[in-house]
């Protein structure tokens, strides 16, 4: 596997803390060329990257609202331009929250219905295989990945949900081991068990679970790797 020609940019805010993990997995497990973009780096645009990841963490401590302060930083303007231009953007956990706060994705994240931080393995069902993030996932498979968040309870108004459904923007839902979407398998009270959504053009996705923590067998699951494999496959075939 040589994906060295595939360039990934990982946006780093003060307080990002999954940046190293994403960096390591992309470079070492998937043999791509990932590098960091510090939020204050003086760059004009993100065009040189094949895709951009906004990793998890506690950007600005997640004070005020999760992702709210990072969303207002100048580098996110570059991410917006990049996304509107068709660039592939993956936001994981806090990255998802930042994408919601910037308006690149619709809806908001509420506090988990347990009112607690929840760290555990969850199962995911893929609803749309026709995106850069899911094109290498086997149909009918159920993916196991860990979540680790305090505010992952996705909420949107009926109109947005309808839109999301119509455009097949709901990409992942929490389910049980067998793939049934049940209340019991919903770890945070998320509306319709939503775990990951995309924008209308399917080039921007937010995902609460952590694919970078489940891309190696020794960590108990390799299923997260399908997300990165999909992105790489999509870019290569483009």
């Amino acid at each position: 596997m040589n994906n060295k020609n595939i360039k990934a940019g990982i946006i780093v805010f003060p307080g990002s803390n999954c940046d190293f993990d994403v960096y390591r997995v992309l470079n070492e497990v998937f043999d791509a060329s990932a590098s960091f973009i510090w939020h204050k780096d003086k760059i004009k645009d993100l065009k040189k990257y094949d895709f951009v990841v906004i990793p998890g963490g506690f950007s600005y401590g997640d004070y005020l609202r999760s992702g709210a302060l990072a969303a207002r930083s100048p580098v996110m303007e570059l991410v917006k331009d990049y996304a509107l231009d068709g660039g592939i953007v993956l936001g994981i956990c806090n990255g998802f929250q930042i994408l919601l706060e910037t308006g690149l994705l619709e809806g908001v994240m509420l506090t988990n219905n347990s009112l607690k931080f929840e760290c555990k393995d969850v199962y995911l069902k893929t609803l749309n295989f026709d995106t850069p993030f899911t094109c290498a996932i086997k149909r009918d498979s159920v993916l196991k990945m860990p979540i680790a968040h305090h505010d992952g309870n996705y909420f949107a108004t009926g109109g947005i949900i309808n839109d999301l459904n119509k455009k097949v923007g709901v990409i992942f839902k929490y389910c049980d081991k067998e793939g049934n979407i049940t209340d019991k398998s919903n770890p945070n009270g998320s509306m319709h068990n939503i775990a990951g959504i995309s924008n209308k053009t399917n080039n921007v996705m937010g995902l609460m679970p952590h694919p970078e923590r489940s891309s190696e067998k020794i960590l108990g699951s390799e299923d997260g790797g399908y997300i990165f494999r999909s992105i790489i496959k999509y870019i290569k075939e483009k």
Partner: protein
Amino acid sequence: MTKKAFIKITLKEEVLDPQGKAVLSVLKSSGYNNVKDVRVGKYIEIDMDEGKSASLKDEAEDISEKVLSNPLIEEFSIEIK
């Protein structure tokens, strides 16, 4: 009769407010030059029945002191309407 208690809880002045500090730094870097300091607090509304017991204000004060706030680091103000 139902009345409403409006309770504001803020950190005492000498206590570090990490949230306020983080918001301040973003506001500053976003160019809001008139901003001097930010303190973040909590705001709570309680519907109360005007019962026979002591005044609502006393009860709200008791609630604020014993449950809603930590008097070691926080202070509160109450308005009843």
